[in-house]
């Protein structure tokens, strides 16, 4: 509750400040201040259950330590993005305060979708999350590629919203108690009415759309590629994990009773996602586009949380969110500072920028899932939760095979970093000393989580 109110408030404050403050560095510092504030009030609610506001929400919002921990991860990640790429956010265009304000509004949507208990709030949260994102994607107004990405994202995104609304309407029509509350759907087990099935499938496809799961992934590479790199960094981390969290929350509460009936469907989606993401990523020439496809592949792993849907899967999703976002913002953060975003741009980085190279390498290793990094434990949790369900063991085997495939394209970058000679002096990479240290901090966090995930997961059980 704290987080929802504070993010929205801070967004408004920043917007008003934009009208009066002329300073060019103020937006970045105000953004950081805001995110720290939000993190603190969220942590207060997490540790002591202390809420600053008591609003009559009619039980539409429900928070537990599980989703507050998740929100803490989201705010932490956003803080790191501000720290790492704050200057790049300011460089997108002229309206510096507004970009940060929009980011805060998105965070408000994220807080809504991770605590909703009602389909109305799911819909509103998803919209509050995506509509500002369309603007951010197109914020580079003169760039035709960014325009195209924004329009594509907008048309497909609102199309999937339409599907989601249709699904919600069907669910409302078919459930006997006429309720939008996801914990009070009362579908029962056994053969389902046709309307419920259609509604569930529509919701499944629209949520898959939002998190870019395989048959609905077409927009992802184009949008990730066309958007300004900072925005891509935010999109691939915060938006994606929030989408997954909403996905899990919706299906766990509303359709949890008939889990066995749609488990097969999820299994098929996982295989399709892993296949498309990993195989297409191999053939990319641009690292930014490769990362877009790899984010589809990682979505396949996160989907295991829906497949298994047990305690381990819940812990796994939080850990995976943290691990994946940390690594992803690291790599995209570096890409945002590079002129040449093909593999060639990384050539010889190990010699010219040793610290930067080290940080990037740790991030890439974590994405691959090498032991001692958070990515490994996250993948392990996901697969272990799938094994615990005791069905479809082949799925785990397939996932492990594709994780091995993914090593190919991540290691291609590492090979370029350390084993190729630089062309010239790598002047295309513009980083400051502090940027390198922040990247190393992210790398340390990744390794710390890889050694002891309890530092994060412990918060779920206070």
């Amino acid at each position, binding site marked *: 509750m704290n987080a929802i109110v504070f993010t929205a408030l801070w967004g408004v404050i920043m917007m008003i400040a934009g009208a009066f403050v002329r300073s060019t560095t103020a937006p970045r510092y105000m953004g950081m201040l805001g995110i720290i504030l939000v993190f603190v009030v969220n942590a207060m609610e997490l540790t002591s259950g202390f809420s600053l506001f008591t609003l009559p929400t009619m039980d539409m919002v429900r928070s537990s330590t599980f989703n507050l921990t998740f929100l803490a991860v989201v705010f932490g990640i956003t803080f790191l993005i501000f720290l790492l790429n704050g200057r790049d956010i300011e460089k997108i265009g002229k309206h510096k305060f507004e970009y940060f304000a929009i980011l805060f509004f998105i965070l408000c949507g994220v807080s809504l979708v991770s605590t909703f208990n009602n389909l109305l709030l799911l819909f509103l949260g998803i919209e509050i999350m995506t*509509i500002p994102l369309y603007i951010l994607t197109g914020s580079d107004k003169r760039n035709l590629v960014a325009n195209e990405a*924004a329009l594509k994202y907008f*048309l497909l995104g*609102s199309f999937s919203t*339409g599907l989601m*609304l*249709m699904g919600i309407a069907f669910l409302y029509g078919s459930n006997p108690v006429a309720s*939008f509350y996801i914990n009070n759907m009362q579908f029962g087990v056994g053969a389902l009415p046709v309307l419920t099935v259609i509604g569930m499938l529509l919701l499944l496809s629209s949520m898959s759309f939002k998190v870019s799961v395989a048959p609905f992934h077409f927009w992802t590479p184009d949008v990730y*590629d066309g958007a300004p790199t900072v925005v891509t960094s935010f999109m691939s981390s915060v938006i994606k994990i929030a989408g997954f969290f909403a996905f899990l929350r919706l299906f766990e509460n509303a359709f949890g009773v008939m889990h066995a009936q749609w488990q097969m469907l999820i299994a098929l989606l996982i295989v399709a996602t892993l296949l498309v993401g990993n195989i297409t990523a191999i053939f990319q020439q641009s690292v930014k586009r490769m990362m877009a496809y790899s984010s589809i592949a990682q979505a396949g792993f996160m989907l295991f949380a829906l497949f298994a849907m047990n305690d381990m899967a819940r812990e796994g999703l939080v850990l995976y969110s943290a691990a994946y976002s940390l690594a992803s913002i690291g790599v995209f953060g570096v890409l945002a500072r590079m002129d040449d975003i093909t593999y060639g741009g990384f050539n010889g980085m190990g010699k010219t920028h040793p610290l930067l190279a080290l940080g990037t390498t740790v991030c890439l290793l974590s994405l691959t899932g090498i032991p001692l990094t958070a990515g490994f434990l996250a993948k392990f949790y996901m697969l272990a939760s799938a094994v615990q369900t005791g069905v479809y063991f082949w799925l785990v085997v397939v996932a492990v095979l594709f994780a091995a495939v993914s090593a190919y394209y991540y290691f291609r970058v590492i090979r370029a970093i350390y084993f190729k000679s630089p062309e010239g002096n790598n002047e295309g990479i513009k980083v400051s000393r502090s940027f390198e240290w922040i990247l190393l901090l992210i790398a340390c966090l990744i390794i710390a989580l890889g050694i002891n995930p309890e530092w994060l997961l412990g918060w779920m059980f206070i």
Partner: protein
Amino acid sequence: MILFTIGVVGVLIRRNAIIVFMCIELMLNSVNLLLVAFSKMHALSPVAKASPTFASDAQVFVFFIMVVAAAEVTVGLALIVMLYRNTHSVDVNFLNRLKY
């Protein structure tokens, strides 16, 4: 339902960004109609009547959909205008620069 189908088909086959956009709006509005119809239907059933907010829920939902649709229109039209300024066309086929 028919409106919704027209909307979906329109999004899939038309090539003009503004018409695609209108079709999306059509989808949202068909959902509005459907929600109101379902709410009326539930009002006749005794089980649903027992729930405290039985008929008003869907109708409130409709208002929220309208508001969100309006917000989407502002953003969407702005994007289309931005594209038109740069390319002097609103043809979706124009959008093929982002490939490999």
